[in-house]
């Protein structure tokens, strides 16, 4: 497809809410200025570059679902590669059981991703080292009696004939067993935990060898990017701790063990936790929503659309786009979805009535997500313009009923579409009345 497109039918295909953009996609708009913060790519590339030799930068990244995180990480990867850095990128979504992640799983997945990325890039590891690592992982993590099992299960992953080194197969077996949620998962975690220092030692041996290997190529350093961890299912344990804080706060030390620069994505409301900030080298980078109320924000969001469709040829009234932008809450995903939805059923041009209907449909969907028990917390955010308690508002952020922004300082608002929901309207009116009475 050649962008921008000229018809409504094509516009439907040009606005896809589920697609992160590759680094060279013509539809990419740098909206970092409009977010009000710094450019993720620039900041993190700089932080990595400035890290003294022999030390490593650990970076946490967070942001709302659908704010363009994965797209920005693709940009970061491209930038780092331009700077001569070898990037190991993996999506936890594909590699782990996001329903239940323990730090051991993350370490195993990182090890596997490093091995796999090197292999796929044609970078050879020293074969003696490879054999040593293989023997260790096979003997210590995979149990003896299970060896036959994994040999069988490997056939499905690689095909019988594939010439894949033993180390790769062992790592694939280990992570496969973790991911599948089989009873072996517990045993493997226990093994890693018991032999953590040796495990990490082997992993770092692999990393050192990997760094040497990439340096023999045209790279001078190595960065691991772990995307998708923020999607980890939220669960509260009986003692009030969440599985999120167990992984990222209590096991921060273990997540910092790999001897390389490493970038993790974390759930947004955890990014504000002070304990978390203490455990990693730099401030978490939080990608805020684009501020759809600011001029620069509106311009950027308009550009998101105009890179995809010729607005004047698709919308009967180009100012309709302003309503869509206002209702997007600064979420690129919501904006694209609104355009897509407004296209439906249209044969010629998108009329203002189609835009209105698209907004109404999104209203119904946000209403579906809002539970009565969360109404008070929602109104509190609307009144204060800021999230004061991440414990209470965590769910609202997770469901994206509340968006956070930055201009100068951090602020928040409820999703603009929610103001059309009757329950919310009534509660806001009542709240306003109470405020008047108070004064």
């Amino acid at each position, binding site marked *: 497809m050649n962008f921008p497109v000229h018809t409504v*039918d094509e516009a*439907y*295909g040009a606005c*896809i*809410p*589920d697609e992160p953009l590759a680094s060279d996609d013509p539809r990419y708009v740098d909206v970092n200025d409009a977010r009000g913060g710094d450019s993720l790519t620039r900041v993190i590339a700089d932080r990595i570059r400035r890290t003294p030799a022999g030390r490593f930068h650990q970076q946490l990244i967070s942001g709302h*679902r*659908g704010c363009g995180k994965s797209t920005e990480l693709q940009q970061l990867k491209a930038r780092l590669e331009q700077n001569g850095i070898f990037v190991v990128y993996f*999506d936890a*979504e*594909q590699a*782990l*059981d*996001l*329903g239940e992640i323990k730090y051991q799983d993350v370490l195993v997945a990182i090890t596997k991703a490093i091995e796999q990325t090197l292999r796929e890039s044609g970078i050879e590891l020293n074969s003696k080292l490879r054999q040593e690592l293989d023997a260790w992982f096979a003997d210590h993590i995979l149990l003896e009696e299970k060896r036959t099992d994994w040999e069988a299960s490997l056939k499905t992953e690689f095909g019988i004939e594939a010439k894949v080194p033993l180390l790769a197969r062992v790592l694939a077996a280990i992570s496969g067993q973790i991911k599948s*949620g089989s009873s072996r998962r517990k045993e493997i975690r226990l093994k890693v935990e018991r032999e953590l220092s040796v495990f990490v030692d082997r992993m770092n041996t692999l990393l050192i060898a990997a760094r040497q290997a990439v340096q023999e190529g045209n790279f001078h350093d190595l960065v691991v990017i772990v995307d998708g961890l923020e*999607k*980890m*299912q939220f669960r509260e344990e009986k003692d009030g701790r969440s599985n999120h804080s167990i992984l990222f706060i209590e096991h921060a030390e273990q997540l910092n063990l790999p001897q390389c620069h490493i970038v993790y994505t974390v759930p947004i409301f955890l990014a504000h936790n002070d304990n978390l900030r203490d455990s990693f080298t730099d401030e978490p980078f939080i990608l805020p929503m684009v501020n759809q109320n600011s001029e620069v924000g509106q311009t950027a969001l308009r550009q998101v659309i105009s890179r995809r469709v010729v607005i004047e040829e698709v919308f009967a009234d180009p100012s309709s786009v302003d309503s869509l932008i206002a209702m997007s809450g600064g979420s690129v*995903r919501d904006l694209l*979805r609104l355009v*897509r*939805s407004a296209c*439906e*059923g249209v044969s010629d041009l998108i009329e203002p009535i189609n835009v209105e209907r698209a907004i109404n*449909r999104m209203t*119904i*969907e946000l209403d*579906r*997500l809002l*539970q009565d028990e969360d109404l008070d917390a929602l109104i509190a955010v609307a009144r204060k313009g800021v999230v004061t308690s991440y414990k209470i508002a965590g769910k609202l952020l*997770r*469901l*994206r009923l509340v968006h956070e922004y930055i201009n100068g300082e951090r602020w928040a608002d409820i999703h603009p579409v929610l103001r059309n929901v009757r329950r919310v309207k009534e509660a806001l009116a009542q709240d306003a009345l109470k405020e008047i009475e108070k004064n």
Partner: protein
Amino acid sequence: MTETAREKESFDHLFVEQPDLARLLWALQRVEGFALYFARCNVPAYRAKLIEAIRANLSRPIAIVEISPLAEMNQQTRPSVDGYIEKQLADVSPDAVVFITGLENLLPSRDEEQMLATTQELNWRRGLFQKMRRPMVFWLPEYALTMLARNAPDLYDWYSGVYDLEIPEQMHADVARATLATIQETEDRRWMSKDERDRWEDVLQELLAAAEANADPDNLSQASAVEQADLLDRLGRLYLQRAEYALARDYLTRALKISEEAFNSDHPNIATRLNNLAYVLKDLGDLQNARALLERSLKIAEEAFGSNHPNVAAHLDNLASVFRDSGDLQNARVLAERALKIDEASLGSNHPNVATKLNNLASVLRDLGELQQARILFERALKIDEITFGPNHPNVATGLNNLASVLKDLGKPQKAINLLEQSLKIDEAAFGLNHPKIANRLNSLACLLKDLGELQNAKNLLERSLEICRQFLGDEHAHTRTVKKNLDIVRKELGETGNE
């Protein structure tokens, strides 16, 4: 006109009645690659019709993947939803649109663990749906869609469109009737979750409204009377489960009235109505009226079925419990023994009805001070219930509670506490935290703690219990007064005075 053209035309009205169906068709006609759609439709039969309407008008193939076989498989070892879909699509044209039906079978509202397991799986494996590079439409009933939206937010947030396909007005009653039939089957076999009961109430109310609209109140046919009385009775019992006693009494009174108008006064149908109404009156503490109704119902049943019929046993048993509540233990014992004997003889000694009778008789024996005998009967009843209903059924909770009460009297407080805590857990899951049953369990537990000297804990539990009692039963109910008295005693022992 060709065959297909005629077929197409017969669907035209659907696209007019359902603007969202037209939107969905428009989108599916144009979409390329992966896109995620949700179609909300509560009725499988109607859904099938809508799908046929789309099929007749869409210029690309449709592949329907039915998920329910997955729900039959072992949760630990079954394939993933995406894996299952991918396999079903192995030979399907790459151009096909995929309709996914039956996912609600993996999202049961009564089983939170299973629901979370499914939504988690969908959420973290969303990328694998995308990788199939096909448009996917998930057809879901309202409750399941909402569950998915809230618990698998990352997957849901990828949606391109959600389509509301409300069933037409004239279909509502048919649908409700079909639902009635399926629920009727399962109603007695297992406990309904709170959500299920709420939906059940909607179905029943809808049917009742339809039945009332179709009937002439001045000249009610017998069939219509039976239908209405049955619906009123079901609603009444539902409200009773929810401890909405006043509502329950109103509905069951109406059910009785309609039955009395339609049948002779000695019809067995009336006996059942009397019995059910008496049950509510008893819970409301109106023992005198409850007793009068039950004596009437017992007489009708004995005349209709003979004195050794299981149906008679139920009336005897209820009457026995009213006698027990009134303090007439000797009479209660005679009736309870008779009821037990009838059921054992006609149903065999391991029938769940026998468990009910055992519990009732044992309670009387306990009150009479025959503790060892009571314990034996309670244990027998508990065993039957555990086998019949599984370990997490409210009947089992009642059994545990009963056994605890006698163990307490036998001087085994620690054992009793363990059983009570277990029963509290079951009931909290079944009824929620705010229900008279819970008040009852809390009260029992508090009394034990008090005996062991844990006054502060006992006080906390009693305060919780009292609050529930007041809310549901009012200040004057015997249970409320008992709890209040217990609380006063504990407060006194703690040296607190006069703040209530």
